[in-house]
């Protein structure tokens, strides 16, 4: 299979065949409840832009953040409307749920480098 025949899942980071309707790893994980929090998000997979903004901040969807999420995969956006920012729950490996992440990005400044998530995240050990 050629590289162009593959896609990378924006949630778990696993490559999968491009002709698949969805990531096989994620649906398997869903079947054992590993993605319980993510499932809640799926209830609204295409939020309008207004829902993703508050004040002068933009909240990025987990899919946009996942590639930068250094310790594991994002499980849920748990504080979308928090005035402090957006809070996320993440997971290390296949078992351990870790800290919330607060993330900020200015609207209208797309060329601004996004701060690495490591700066915004409580270290796993302190979670």
């Amino acid at each position: 299979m050629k590289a162009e025949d593959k896609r990378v899942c924006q949630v778990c980071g696993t490559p999968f065949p491009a002709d698949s309707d969805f990531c096989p790893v994620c649906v398997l994980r869903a079947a054992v409840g590993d993605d319980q929090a993510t499932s809640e998000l799926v209830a609204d997979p295409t939020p309008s832009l207004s829902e993703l903004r508050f004040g002068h901040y933009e909240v990025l969807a987990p899919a946009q953040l996942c590639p930068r999420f250094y310790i594991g995969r994002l499980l849920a956006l748990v504080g979308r409307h928090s005035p402090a920012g957006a809070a996320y729950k993440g997971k290390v490996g296949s078992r351990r749920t870790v800290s919330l992440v607060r993330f900020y990005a200015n609207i209208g400044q797309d060329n601004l480098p996004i701060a690495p998530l490591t700066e915004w995240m409580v270290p796993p050990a302190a979670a």
Partner: protein
Amino acid sequence: MKPDDSSVGDGAGRFRTTQWSAVLLSAQSQAPGSRAALSDLCKLYWYPLYAFVRRRGCNAEDAQDLTQGFFLSLLDRKALRQVTPLKGKFRSFLLASLRNYLSDQFDRGHSLKRGGNIEFVPLDFESGDERYRSEPHEALTAEKIFDARWAMTLLDETLRRLEQEYATQRKLTIFKTLKPFLGPAGSQKLLPYEEIAEKVDLSVGGVKTLVHRLRKRYTEVLREEVARTVMDPKEVDEEIHALCEALIAAQGRLGS
């Protein structure tokens, strides 16, 4: 030869709830129906076995004969009587049995032609070989490929069953429209609910409900499929985790 299309109807339905443990116990007690039930499972999961044989260096023709020969030996109740009921998964049992079978066959100098081209279990070898040749195999062991293919077969079967259910309820359009929502949020671009609602003539709330039901049913069917291949229902989660790991190891190298 094409797979037995009737297997998606009543024929397969008879054994849909049959679990590996039931097949095994039935075979060991020589109850009628065990051979058919095992054949049903084999028909579903033949491709990972065929590809495993090809990976061992056999050409397509030999691999076809060996796979059919293996099924013949497997359907012989003697083989099943030797299995300890406590030996977990159908997947592991098949792979171990196939390894032994191949070893025996190679020891006998490939005396596998006894059956010629007779097919004991109807399998679609033509498309199987085409599929096999399209898949890269570098840096993956035959066992890892086997497990990943098993996982993909399981997911294909889950989706096929779900599609059939929706078709029976005359909701095929809804199924095809909502199928991408089976994946997690953000894994790909999805149509907005508003657009889908318009397409299927429902409210946005109604569409969300349908997505929820589809996802829930998918999980149920998937777990049922896994349950058919393990000895104890308690092993379902463990098996799913193992299949996840196999897919991650394969890194999307296999076709769906």
